[in-house]
């Protein structure tokens, strides 16, 4: 499939093995190597996942029983805001970019990303942005009490934590846009000869579409928060009702960003799953072309459905019907993807290693989240569910069991390529079953809470909600502790383990498996030729 000419021997995780490379901390600060940057993105993502997880467990502890016990209501609201922002902008998005950095050049036969120095910058913008975001907890007035949606006029009332958050979003947005430009340019211009777009692994396709979505919507979010900033400090009235502004306008703008954003988070996961399922079914992906078209259809539809997040603001009936129909339509391409994955497995020769287990967990739970998504797409039903725990359950099924499980699948899938060692299958399976079971214990009861009428974002609740909340809290702690198993699995794989062959999975076909494990520090200096 390809010809590889560079010498073997570079170690991605051994510093100083190369000429012209600083060692120690300076290696990581100055690196322009896509593998180093990918590694940093992934560790950053995991760190933020733990931080956001600690917030989540604090929230769940407070909700263990009625009455205020652990935090004050205002601190509770701040934790909710930060949990959302940290998980979305700190954990999920950088995680996906980490996989893109590591794997896209390897999968298309490119020597590195197109703009290697900009790549370094887009990573190093993230830690300061994250620090600014978290600093909000320690300034007078605390972090914003608005939830991650930052709706005015509430966000106009907040203290300086809000300004820190706005600037953090600006910086993270700039980082995302640079990352996206890099990814699109790499995919469009740096493919190996013979690697046509329609031969690209689906993961690259999913990121190509995602990067376009990012470039289209991150500037809109940046614009919206900039207008919020001028409303707060410079006397404009874009959103301030009392000054003649329109608070609903912010919601339109925010969700014009926010809805594509959820696809930005889930599309790379679709791509990762489309790599893992064929490998462990030992069978080519079913319906490659329709998978690509489904990705495009989802991306385009994602621009047309934003107001389904605003079904209770009082839209006219015609508007509601349009957004309801458009939202329901998304079920079609999403269904096509699920059916294609099943058809890929159909009559395959399936084995259940950890990556495949997580991919199946993804399929099962993401689809469940898809069904509840269809239910909340129906506006009259959504009137009962809007801003309740039903919605919380729904989006954790697609974000956690969807994207996060796909990240776990991909991590186990590529760990041998990254580290040169096989991970411990038993530990990984413990991680899977712990995550899968406790995820459901934590989040399934939230459907019941929402049905029974418990609003989201409340620090204290009426007593008929007590028992399911307690189940949920127990599940949340179980889920959180299960992630320590993941940390152990990854660290022990980096430190040692059975040496991994170049292609540890006999069903894998893409270009990265033609490289030795671990992948050399400089791969494909001359492009391989793809048939």
């Amino acid at each position, binding site marked *: 499939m390809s010809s590889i000419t560079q010498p073997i021997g570079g170690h991605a995780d051994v510093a100083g093995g190369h000429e012209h490379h600083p060692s120690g901390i300076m290696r990581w600060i100055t690196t322009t190597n896509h593998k180093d940057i990918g590694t940093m993105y992934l560790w950053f993502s995991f760190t933020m996942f733990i931080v956001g997880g600690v917030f989540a467990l604090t929230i769940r502890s407070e909700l263990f029983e009625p009455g205020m016990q652990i935090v004050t209501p205002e601190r509770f609201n701040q934790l909710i805001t930060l949990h959302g922002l940290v998980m979305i902008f700190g954990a999920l998005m950088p995680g996906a970019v980490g996989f893109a950095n590591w794997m896209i050049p390897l999968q298309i036969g490119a020597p590195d990303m*197109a*703009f290697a120095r900009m790549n370094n910058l887009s990573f190093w913008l993230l830690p300061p942005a994250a620090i600014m975001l978290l600093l909000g907890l320690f300034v007078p007035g605390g972090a914003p009490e608005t939830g991650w949606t930052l709706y005015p006029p509430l966000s106009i009332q907040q203290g300086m934590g809000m300004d820190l958050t706005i600037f953090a979003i600006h910086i993270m947005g700039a980082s995302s*846009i640079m990352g*996206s*430009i*890099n990814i*699109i*340019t*790499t995919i*469009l*211009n*740096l493919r190996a000869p013979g690697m*046509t*777009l*329609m031969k690209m692994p689906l993961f690259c396709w999913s990121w*190509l*579409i995602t990067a*376009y*979505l990012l*470039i*289209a*919507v*991150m*500037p*809109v979010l*940046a*614009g919206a928060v*900039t*207008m919020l900033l001028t409303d707060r400090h410079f006397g404009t009235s*874009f959103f301030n009702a009392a000054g003649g502004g*329109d608070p609903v*306008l912010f919601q*339109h*703008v925010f969700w*014009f960003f926010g809805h594509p954003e959820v696809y930005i988070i889930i599309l790379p996961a679709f791509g990762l799953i489309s790599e893992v399922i064929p490998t462990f079914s030992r069978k080519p992906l079913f319906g490659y072309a329709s998978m690509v078209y489904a990705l*495009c259809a989802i*991306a*385009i539809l994602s*621009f*047309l459905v934003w107001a389904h997040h605003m079904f209770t603001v009082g839209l006219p009936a015609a508007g509601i019907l349009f957004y309801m129909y458009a939202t329901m339509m998304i079920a079609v391409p999403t269904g096509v993807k699920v059916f294609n994955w099943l058809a890929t497995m159909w009559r395959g020769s399936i084995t259940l290693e950890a990556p495949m287990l997580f991919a199946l967990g993804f399929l099962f739970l993401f689809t469940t989240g898809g069904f509840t998504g269809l239910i909340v797409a129906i506006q009259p039903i959504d009137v009962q569910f809007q801003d309740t725990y039903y919605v919380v359950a729904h989006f954790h099924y697609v974000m956690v069991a969807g994207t996060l499980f796909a990240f776990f699948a991909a991590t186990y899938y590529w760990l041998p390529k990254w580290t040169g060692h096989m991970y411990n299958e038993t530990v990984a399976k413990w991680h899977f079953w712990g995550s899968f079971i406790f995820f459901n214990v934590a989040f399934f009861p939230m459907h019941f809470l929402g049905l029974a009428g418990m609003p989201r974002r409340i620090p204290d609740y009426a007593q008929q909600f007590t028992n399911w909340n307690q189940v949920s809290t127990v599940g949340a702690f179980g889920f959180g502790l299960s992630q320590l198993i993941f940390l152990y699995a990854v660290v022990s794989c980096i430190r040692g383990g059975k040496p991994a062959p170049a292609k540890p999975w006999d069903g894998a076909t893409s270009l990265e498996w033609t490289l030795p494990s671990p992948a050399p520090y400089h791969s494909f200096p*001359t492009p391989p030729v793809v048939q």
Partner: protein
Amino acid sequence: MTFAGAVRVPDEDDFEARRRAAARRTGFGLLVVALIFFFGFIASRLWLSPDLSLGVIGAAVVVFVVVAVGRHLRK
């Protein structure tokens, strides 16, 4: 910096240089798009009707995605 009668650069360097130029063009194009979205968005809020501006930007995004990806499909 070539002139008539110059020695031809070897194929590989030529390939590299062309590739880098192409990458720069693509990257610059995308950056311009992002900047237009950011400033265009705020400007349209200030001067145009909000409903119109969202529609225009939404349509532009769709056309942009279709054209940008479609152009490369054949390659």
